[in-house]
Every structure is written in C-alpha cells, then in structure tokens.
C-alpha cells in the first residue's frame, strides 16, 4: 500500500503568557515530536485521554493550526507536498483533498443555512457555480449518507444528532477528498445512533476508498473502525500497531492500563482491572524521563531519567518504552 500522509517530528507548542505585556513565561507542549504514516485506504486511529494532544495533531494536519516544527508530507496526484511549510493562501487549493468530520453535530452546522446549502458550500467555493449541477451532486451526497434528498430545504434544527452527523459527513465527502479526519465523530451521539454512524463510515470507506484518521478517546469504538491504532500520552505517541495486535498484546504499560479501564458490557469482568494511580501529567510541565513513569507500575530508575524514543520493536509495532522488550503485558481476553 502507498503512503498517503507522512507526519515527521510534529511539534506544536502553545505559549503561556502572563502579565500586562503578555510576556511568554512557558510553553505547553501539546504535541511534542509525533511521527507516523497513514497508508492509502486505511483507518489510523489516534487514541488518548483528554490533553494528550490527539486533537492538536489532527488540527495541525488539516492546517487549522500552524505546527511549531516538523513535516506533514501529503501525497496528491503523484507529488508530495509538505503542508507544514505552506502559507495560508497556498493551502487553499489543497484543502479539498482533506476534509473533517466534527465531534459536535450541533455547532458544526451553520444554523442559518439549509442542509442543501451546507452540503453544497464546498462545491460552490471550489468552482461548481451552476446551481442545478450543485443540487444534483448534493442529492447524490445525501443519498450516499442515507438521508432523504427531500430534506434539502430543511434547517439543521429539524434534525436529530445522528442525522446532523450524516449531514456533516456528506459535506466532508462533497469534494471527493483523499483523507477524512474524523475528530470523535460518534462521542456526542447516543449508543443506538453511534452504531449507525460507525457502520456508515465503514461502508463509505469501502465504497469510496477513503482514508481515515480517526481521533477518539474510546477504545471500544476504535476497535470497530480502525486498521491500526496509535496511542498518545502527553504529546507523544507511546505505541502504534495493528489493531488486533495492540488490543491482544499491548507492549506499552499505558496501553495496557487503557485497555483494562475500558468498560465492557459483560458483568463481572471488571474485577482484575488495573487502576492507574494519580493524574495525567501536565503538558506544560511534564515529568522528566518517560512522561508516564509516575503512574507506571513497571517503572524503574532509568525511566525517571531517560526519555524513551518511539522504535520499531517488531515489524509494524512501534513502542516508546525502555522496558518494551522485557515486559509481558495483559491484553484483552479473547471473546471466544
């Protein structure tokens, strides 16, 4: 498979300003050296808890934020462009190749526009000025996300959360993008609607050969959609692997704890759960060495001093842990 997107050494620091003169007194290292690739047609999930930097990574890739350092190499039509180096104006013609699906189905649709105009806006902006042609394409898109085309003239307030999310997906698909960045697309939805949207995303990927970057905090949801999973903790990727391998045999203690903490709808399995002590580290002031060491039950002295790098310990398995090769961690029990 070919690589669609390569992120190398991505950093995003937010300055902390204080005082009347707004002097910079520190940095929040929201993303601190993240590297990964996304292959064409796959789903890579970016998983982590709040403040781990997963959303910042996705916003940098879409260039809704300007990265502080690093390269974002995106392959379009046989050439590769470093998005991180481009100016706002240069980016505009490239925007159509990557689109976003938002978390909040309410704030992501302009309440003052009808659905037809919302879905048609990207088309209009990118040169489809003929009204009839645009209408036809919008109807196609609505059918694609299983919404009746008759709803074209309705306003967002008339739709349920799930339907709104379908509208958001249709808008993202309007320009036939190569990459869709989905930022927690189902976490604001009810369980019974979540499954509908997840299935829709899987179907669309098969039909349109889409590539997804799926940002989520919920490991259960991620398991249903992703080919590979990258786990983030305090601005860095701690583990990246094929989904099945990562869930069955995690190599990083944080992944292990995260898997163990995920609630499962089976009574009685929670008894031998690993409960992490303390709180997630502060990205403005991360602990020395491995950022996870204060909470890690396998931590040793060297973990407090030496910062581990993300390395490939087995083919396709990347881990950032000094003890990755010695530990044997507990994964998800086989459902069978």
């Amino acid at each position, binding site marked *: 498979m070919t690589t669609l997107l390569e992120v190398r050494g991505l950093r995003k620091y937010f300055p902390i300003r204080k005082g009347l003169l707004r002097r910079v007194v520190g940095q929040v290292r929201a993303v601190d050296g993240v590297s990964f690739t996304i292959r064409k047609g796959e789903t890579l999930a970016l998983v982590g808890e709040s403040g781990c930097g997963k959303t910042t990574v996705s916003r940098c890739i879409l260039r809704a934020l300007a990265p502080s350092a690093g390269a974002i190499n995106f392959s379009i039509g046989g050439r590769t462009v470093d998005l991180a180096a481009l100016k706002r104006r240069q980016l505009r013609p490239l925007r159509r190749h990557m689109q976003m699906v938002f978390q909040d189905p309410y704030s992501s649709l302009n309440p003052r526009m009808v659905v037809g105009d919302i879905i048609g806006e990207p088309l209009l902006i990118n040169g489809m000025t003929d009204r009839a042609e645009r209408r036809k394409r919008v109807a196609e898109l609505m059918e694609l996300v299983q919404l009746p085309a008759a709803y074209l003239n309705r306003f967002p307030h008339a739709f349920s959360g799930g339907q709104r999310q379908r509208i958001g997906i249709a808008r993202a698909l309007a320009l036939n993008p190569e990459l869709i960045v989905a930022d927690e697309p189902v976490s604001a939805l009810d369980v019974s609607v979540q499954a509908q949207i997840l299935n829709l995303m899987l179907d669309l990927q098969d039909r349109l050969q889409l590539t997804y970057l799926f940002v989520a905090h919920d490991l259960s949801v991620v398991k*249903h959609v992703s080919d590979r999973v990258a786990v983030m903790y305090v601005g860095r990727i701690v583990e990246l692997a094929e989904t099945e391998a990562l869930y069955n045999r995690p190599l990083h203690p944080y992944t292990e704890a995260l898997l163990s903490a995920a609630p499962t709808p089976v009574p009685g399995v929670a008894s031998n759960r690993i409960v992490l002590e303390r709180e997630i580290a502060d990205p403005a002031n991360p602990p020395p060495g491995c950022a996870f060491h204060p909470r890690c039950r396998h931590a040793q002295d060297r973990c407090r001093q030496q910062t581990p790098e993300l390395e490939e310990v087995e083919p396709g398995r990347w881990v950032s842990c000094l003890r990755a090769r010695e530990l044997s961690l507990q994964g998800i029990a086989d459902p069978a």
Partner: protein
Amino acid sequence: MAEPILSVRNLQTQFAAQEGVVHAVDGVDFDVFEGRTLGVVGESGCGKSVTARSILGIVESPGRVVGGQILLRPAKGGAPIDLLTLSPKAMRDIRGPEIALVFQEPMASFSQYYTIGNQITEAIRLHMGMDANAARARAIDLLDMVGVPQPSRRVDEYPFQLSGGLRQRVMIAMALACDPRVLIADEPTTALDVTTQAQILDLLRELQQKRGLAIILITHDMGVIAEMAHDVAVMYLGRAVETGPVGEIFSSPKHPYTRALLRSIPTVLAKPRTRLPTIAGSIPHPFNRPTGCPYHPRCSEIITGLCETAEPPAVGEASREVRCFLHGGRP
C-alpha cells in the same frame, strides 16, 4: 430479600412547554436496597436524570412531579414516608442526611468563590450541628476517605485548582458529608477520562462496601452498568421498559430495546472492523412521542395492530419486570 430503602412507584414528571406537555417520566417503578446499586440506563431523553431529580424534589421549572409515590423507609424503622407529600422544608432534611446527589459535571456544581472545605463544612454544620473546628476535621477526614491526596492542604483550595478526577472525588465527599443512606450518582464519570473513570468507579464500590450505601447509578453506558450495578432498570422515553438483576439483563434480555441496545454497543472485545447491529431510526423528539408502546416505530419485533395502539403493562415478578406484549399483558 430485605425491605427496600427507597421505592419509586408509578412516578410521573411532566414539563409543560409552549409546544405541549412533555412526559419526561411516565410511570416508573423500582426499588433500591441497602448495600446494592441500582443502575438506571438509557439514552438521551429517556428521563433518567429527571427521575433522579424527582426523587430529590429538585425538578427544574416548568417541570413538575404529577403523580406516583417515592417511599423512603426511615432508618429507625416504621412506616415508609412518601417524599412527594413532604413540605419543601422537610425535604431539605432529606437531601443530604438521607439521600445525596453526585452530578455529572462537578465544575458546575461547585461555587467558584469558596474553598472546597467551606463548601463541605457548610452542609455538615447545617445538618449535623457541629462547630467550625469539628466540621473542618470531618471535611478533612472525608477528603481522605475519597482518596484526595494531602487532604489537610487541599481542603483550603478552590474548585478550579483541582483536576476533573479530583473534583469528582470532592463532589462525592460532599455528598457523603451527612452520612446519607442513598446516593444518587447522575452520570458521575461521563465527563472523565477512562483511566479516571476507573478510579472513581472503584471508589464508589469501595464506599458502598464500607458503608452499606444504596446507590442509584444513572448512566448511558452499558459498560459502567455491567461493572457497577446489582440491579438494572432500562429506560426508554420516560418508561422503565425492563428491570432485573444485572446478570439476567445482560445474559437474557427480554425487551427488544434492551436486546438491540446490548447488541449495538461497541466493545473492545469485538473483532476489528466489524459492523455493529443497529437500531433503526432515532429517538423521537419528546413532543412527538409515539402512541402505544413508545418503542414500536423502531422495534424489529413489532406486533402490528397492537403495539401502535395499546401501551404494554409491566409483566413478570417484582424483581424482573418487562413492558412488552411479546412477554404477555395483551389486552
């Protein structure tokens, strides 16, 4: 089984809006026992939070409890008291010492202008008549009990200085300040990260074992229910469609909604990239509540000609009820 501490019978709460009356809670029954957790589970608009607020008598206007009974068995024994008949003043003596509430969003339930110590001791002094020093000592004990590190320092901090997990711990400490017998936890971990959620759920279980608390746990998350609850009430559009012990609800769900809901939950145990069975359609808007069985437009096992018109009554024994014509109760 022992007598329940709290019994809710045919509870009905309505909201009168301009567009019509919303039957937010429409005839809910359940029992809560000492040392056990009742999980109330459902999706948005099912009335689970309004149920909790109705029990505590804090339904927001224009909402109003219009019918039913909420029976609390007094600690000293004797006939149960119907909370709905109490005066607002008498209700204040129930909230705190008898029944306490933990909210979903701890940040919104604290005042930002007082230290957490102030806020905990206020309740203690009000209900338990302690002096300032004794109340402060008790506040520190409570913080220690819920696992707040360095409680004697934290007691003088303001809510914004705490992380989400710590705030929820403080919220629990505050709820437990007056030794309630029933704790209502309304989505206590929804705003938290998974690893923090695991910590808080652990804490709740531990406190229950130590103090014999009866807990009503309100959540949308079947995973949390599986982990925490002893008994379960599944709600849909203001009604408890199925109640029963947690094992039976998960192993042999009876109501088509419960069955469909359980099938549609994503889980870490699934095979990667498997499609989930779904429930058709979406939850109706409260103003467009379907007639008959409220679930019938989405039900795959609908009995045509019956479910659209008649409301299924609860059938089964008291500890295992289901409201569905597939299991009886046909007119």
